[in-house]
Every structure is written in C-alpha cells, then in structure tokens.
C-alpha cells in the first residue's frame, strides 16, 4: 500500500466536502425534476443521470445552470463540459459531477 503524502491528500477533495456536495447536488436534482422525481431509491454517487434518473437533456442543462449558480466561480463547468464527447456527458453519474465539484473546490 502506498503511503499517503501531503500532496496526495491535498490533491483530492475531503470526504466531508464530497458528502456536502452530494447532498447539495441531490437537492438540486430533486428541484429540477420536481413532481417527476420518484423516491424509489435514494440518489447516490452511482446514480446515472440518463439511465437511472431518466433525466432529459434539457433537464440536465437546467441542472447545470443550478449547479453553476450554486458554486459560481468555484467551478468551471463550461470547460468541463467542453472537454467531453456527447456520449460521455450522457453517461455521467451523480458521482462524476460531485467529484468534479468537490475537486474544483479543493
């Protein structure tokens, strides 16, 4: 097992940050889906936007906007999206988004 150095600890998000971001993102998803959100299973890091939540593309755009409003200058959402192919974006999980945000926030 590799010993953790200060650098590796500093490079990733803190677990507490990840949980906070997951809670925030989950509430934003529920807000975007509105009455259509069915609480069949909780939103986790493994939940896929398209396959599990059946989020329409335009709803993902609305969610992206909410995320940007919430975290403002702390994240560069546009560049993150701009580097991905359409298929990659459509395969994103909640965990991918949460990790991106938490890593950006440091």
């Amino acid at each position, binding site marked *: 097992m590799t010993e953790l150095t200060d650098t590796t600890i500093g490079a990733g998000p803190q677990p507490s940050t990840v949980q906070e971001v997951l809670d925030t993102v989950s509430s934003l998803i529920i807000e975007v889906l509105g009455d259509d959100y069915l609480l069949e299973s909780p939103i986790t890091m493994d939940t896929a936007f398209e396959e599990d939540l059946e989020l329409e593309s335009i709803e*993902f755009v609305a969610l992206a*906007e909410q995320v940007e409003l919430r975290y403002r200058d702390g994240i560069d959402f*546009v560049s993150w999206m701009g580097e991905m192919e359409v298929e990659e974006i459509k395969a994103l999980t909640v965990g991918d988004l949460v990790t991106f945000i938490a890593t950006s926030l440091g």
Partner: protein
Amino acid sequence: MPKVIVNGNELFYRRMGSGDSTLVFIHGLLMDNLSSWWLAVANAAARHADTLCYDLRGHGLSERPPTGYTVADGVDDLLGLLDTLGIEEPAHLFGNSYGAVVAVAFAIAHPERVAGMVLIEPHVGAEGLSDDELGRLSAGLDEALTGLFRPDVKQWLETKGGRKMNRLVASWKGFLTETSLIDDLRQTKTFSDEELSSIKCRVLLVFGEESDIFERARVLVDRIPDAELQVWRDLDHLVLRDAPARVRELVLEWVRSAEAARIGGQALAGH
C-alpha cells in the same frame, strides 16, 4: 433560470463564455431544443467566444403559446432576444434543420446583424425544388402526429416507454394538437432567388450524403453568393446527432477563421 420575455413569451437561453465573436445556436423543430447544440458544441465553443443558445418558443423550457409558429415569428423572437441581451454586433448563426430556416430568414430580414452562417441540413424551401420536396416538412409532422396516436405506440409507451419517453411524447402531442404549429408551418414560404442571392455573408452548408432533403443542397449553394457546400459521407438528416464531434470541430474552425479575418481586417484598417 435565465429567461427573458420576448414578444410576450418567456424564452429560455444559456449564454456562456466570452470573446470578440458572438455565436448563436438555433435548434431544430418539435423534438429538439437547445440541449442538442449545448451538449455537442456550445460548451466547447464558449471557451473561445461569446456563446448563446436558446429554446425556440414552444420548445424545451421556453413558453408554449397557442399560436405564433411561423418562420417570421422565429425571426422576430431572435431579433428580440438579441436586442434584449444587448447583442448589437453582427453574430455568427449556427442553425440545425429548421433552426437553419430561421437563420436564413433572419439573415435576409436583418443582414446587418449577421456575420456569417453555418447551416446544418437546412430545411429551407427554395424556388426550383420539387413539390414533393417542399411538402416534406408538413408531411413529416402529419406523420409524427398520426404515429403518436397509434395503438401499438401507445401500448409500447405504457409498458416500456419509461418516464422520459412518456414525458417527451406527451409534450410533442401537446405541441402538435394544442398549438397552431402545423398550420403555421404549412404557410412557410419558399425563399425566392432574389432573397437568397441577397445574403452577402459567408455561408457554410453541411448536408449528410444520405439526407432525404439533399435536393436542397445544390439549389442553395447555387443561389447564395458566398456559400460553400460540404457533403458528409455515411450520414442522413441527423448530422448533428450522429456526428457531434465533427460538427464541433467545424464550428471551432469557423470561429478561428472568423477571428483571423477580424484581426486581418483590423490590420488592414490600421494601414
């Protein structure tokens, strides 16, 4: 939610990035909304330019009034949106399918607001096209309407459709049956040779080689003075959906070229 009221209706838009050029992306009809451009191109383009994509009225998250779906309404909405957002300099328009029709009509009506256009599979009616070709758009809508009410389609939706598909179909049905969309589009006029030849900006036309509206390609490239045609192999009408990375590269190259022309123009003006 970024929405503005334009001509009495709330329009949803996303404006991203910054730069000397302004890019405006216009999506296709009925089943489309700004997300197709947003997913494929707009975010990447926003790293180089002021980038705007919006939902046409009735589509996506924009308001759906019962009437007002002619191409002229689309032109008025685009003008109102640009004015409201303070975009006064000529913009580059990127239109997909029906969105390209709005772009062409806008460029004819307001040439001073358009710097150039990239038209992906433009569903533009022009003189010289066969009657079959001109009737294709409204025939397609009639077909969609009939299809959505077929018992087997209904059964499939109930058993296998899932939340997303059922929501989309309900939305399309509402659009086709509760608004004047089909009637308005039947009135879509054919652009005259004079109108098309009045377009002075640079225009790039992209068609899929297998496209069912390919007949338009030659007519448009012949009529529009500064038009270039690219025919992409192994693609049909759904170029943006099926070749998003290639469209993105094309747009980025267009932006680079526009920047180079702008800088070149400034250098010339300085001498």
